[in-house]
C-alpha cells in the first residue's frame, strides 16, 4: 500500500513539475511573496523565455 502511495505521489509530483507548478512554488518561496495574477505572469514570462530557448528533440 505504501509503495502504491509513493508511486502515486511521485506521479503527482512529476505532473506538478512538468506543469511548472512546483517551479512556481519555489519562485514564490524564494521571493518571499504570495500568489497573484501579476506574480504568475512575471514568473511565467521568465520561465517561458528560458524554456523556449532550449532545443527539443526529434
Amino acid at each position, binding site marked *: 500500500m505504501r509503495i502504491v502511495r509513493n508511486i502515486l505521489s511521485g506521479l503527482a*509530483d512529476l505532473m506538478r513539475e*512538468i506543469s511548472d507548478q512546483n517551479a512556481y512554488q519555489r519562485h514564490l518561496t524564494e521571493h518571499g511573496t504570495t500568489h497573484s495574477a501579476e506574480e504568475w505572469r512575471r514568473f511565467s514570462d521568465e520561465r517561458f523565455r*528560458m524554456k*523556449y530557448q*532550449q532545443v527539443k*528533440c526529434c
Partner: protein
Amino acid sequence: MDSLKRFGIGIVWVAVWIAVAGGAAVCLGAIATSRGEHINSMWLVIAAVCSYLIGYRFYGKFIAARVMTLNETRATPAERLENGHDFVVTNKWIVFGQHFAAIAGPGPLVGPVLAAQFGYLPGVLWIIIGAVFGGAVQDFVILFASVRRDGKSLGQIAREEVGKVGGIVALITVLLIMIILLAVVSLVVVNALAGSPWGTFTIAATMPIAVLMGLYLRYWRPGKVLECSALGFVLTVGSVFGGQWIATSPLGPAFTLPAIALAVAIIVYGFLASALPVWLLLAPRGYLSTFVKLGVIVMLAIGILAVRPELQMPALTRFTDGTGPVFAGKVFPFCFITIACGAVSGFHALISSGTTPKMLARETHAWPVGYGCMLLESFVAVMAIIAACVMDPGVYFAVNAPAGVVGKTAEAAVTTISGWGFPVTADQMAAMARSVGETTLFSRTGGAPSFALGMAHIFAKGGGGDIVLGFWYHFAIMFEALFILTILDAGTRVGRFMLQDLLGQVWAPLGRTGWMPGVIGLSAAIVGAWGYFLIQGVRDPLGGVNALWPLFGIANQLLAGIALSIATTILLKMHGPKYMWITCVPLSWLVVVTFAAGWQKIFSPAPALGFLAQANQLKDALNAGKITGTGIGQTQSLIFNARLDAAVCGLFMLLVAIVLIDSLRLWYGIVSGGRERKVLESPFVMSRLQGEEA
C-alpha cells in the same frame, strides 16, 4: 549469521541476473533465427526489456563506477549554482520524467515505422544494440561531462575541450540539422492530413484550444496549469470526436485540403508561432503535448502487453537489397540512419547538456537519467516497430509506398504490391479506409498514418473492436501531429535565437531579441529555410520522405558523431587511452554508417537513391524533349532541389569531418605525449545535501 544471509541474497541476485541474461539471449536468438512464421510481439518486448536490464545494471554501472567515477559527495551545479530558475536541485525521478519528455519526440515513432520495410529484424536489433552500446552511452557521458562543467552546453564543451573550430562547427551543424528536422517533421504532418477532413479539423482545432488555454492561464486562472491542461485535453478529445462529424457534414470539403495547401498553412503557423508571445500558443500547447505524449506512450505499452499481437511482417523482406518502395537504399547503411532517435540520436546530446545537468541533485543520478532515459526511448521505438509490423505487410506497403513508385490508381498499387509477394486487394484497402473514416489510405507516406493504424488496431483489439478504430486512428494522428507541431514552433523559435546569436556578431541590432524588425526578419528566414524543404518534399514525386528522412537521419547521426568525439576526448583526458573504446566503438560505427550513407545519397548512380543521378536523369529527359509545357519548370526545380540536397548532405559530411580531424589531431597529441592531458572540470566542492534533500 548476517554473512550467511548476505551470501544467500547474493546467490538469489546472481540467479535473477542469470535468468534475465538467459531471457535476453533466448528471445534475441528466437527473433534472429525465426523465419517463415509469424512470431508474437512479446518476443521483441522480452528481448528488449531483458537486454536493457542487463545493459543498465552491468554496462551502465561499469561506466558510472569505473570510467566516470561518479561521486555521491561531489556537489552538482544544481546545488552549487542554485538560483531557483535554471539551476534547481530536483528529485531524481522528476528529472528522469523531464529528461524523457524532452528527448522523446516523433523520431522514435516515425523512423522504426519506415525501417520496417526491411522486416522487423534489422530495426529491432539496431534499436536494442544501438541504444545499449551507443545512444545511452552518448547521453550518459555528455550529461556527466556537462555536470562536471557547470552545466555547459555541447557547443561550449566542444570549444573548450576540442578547440574553437569544433565549437563553431557544432553550432552551425545544429542549426542546419534543425532546419532539415523541422522540414521533415512538418512533411510527416502534411502527409498524414492531406485529403483527411477529420484529421485536419482535429489539428486545426488544437490551435484555438491552445490560445484559449493561454488566455485562461494568463488572465482567468493564472498559475493553474494542471487544471488548464485537463481542460485542454478534454477539448482536444472532443475535437477528435467533432472531426468525425465535420468530415461527413457540409463543412467536410472546407477541411479536405491538398498537401500543398497544408504545407502553406503550416509555414504560416510556424511564422506566427515564432513571432507571437510564447504564453499565447507555444507554452499551453507544450504543456498539453507533454501530458498527451507521456499518457499515450504508457497506454501503448499497456496495450501491447494486454493484446500481445502477432507480427505479420516477416523478419527480413526482399527490400534489404535496396529496392524498397518506402525509401531507397540497402539495409546497410540505411536502416541505421533511418532509425536515429530510438538507437542513437545526436540531438539528445543537446538536451543532456541543456536543462538536465542543471537539475541533478547527485552526480550518481546521471546514470538512471542519462543512460536509463535513452533505454526507455529505445523501448518506445520497439513499440513503434511492433505497431508497424502487426499490420498485413501488403497494407503497410500500400500506406507507405508513394504513388510515384506503386502507381496512381488503387488497382495499379495493389497489383504492384501483390507482385512483390505481399498480397493486398483494393477492397481490403477501401474497407480499412472506411473503418478509420478516411477516403483512401493509399500512399499516405511519412510513417505517421501507418503508425496510427497499427496503434489503433492494438487499442481496438484491447476493447471496442472495429467501432472504435476510427476514433483511435485519429486520436493517434492527433497525438503525433500535436507534438510534431510543438517541435515545429519551439524549433523555429530556437532557430531564430541561434541565428540572432550568430548574426548579432555581425550587426548588433540583429542580436537583440526585443527588436521587432530583427525578430520578424529572422523568423521569416528560419521559416523560409525549412518551408523551402517542406515544399520541395510535397512536390517530390517520390513523396519527399525518400529524400528528406535520410538527410535528417544522416545529419542527426553526424551530430552524434560530434558528441561522441567530444565524449572520447573527455575520456582520453581522464584516463588516457584505457577506456576510449567505450565511445570510440559507437563513434567508429556511426562514422562508417553516416559517411557510407551520405556518399551513396550524393553519388549513387541509381536515380532513386543518388541525388546527383536523379538530377542527371531529369536533365537528360529535359534535353531529350520528353518533358513539355508546365512540366519543364517543375522538372527544372526538381533538378535544382536534388542538387541542393546533395550539397547539404556534402556540407554536413564536411563539417563533421572537420571536427573528427580536429579531434584525431588532439587525441594523437595526447596519446603520443605531445599535448597535456588537462581535464577542464570545475573544482571539487563537497555536497551539503542530506539524503532526504537529494
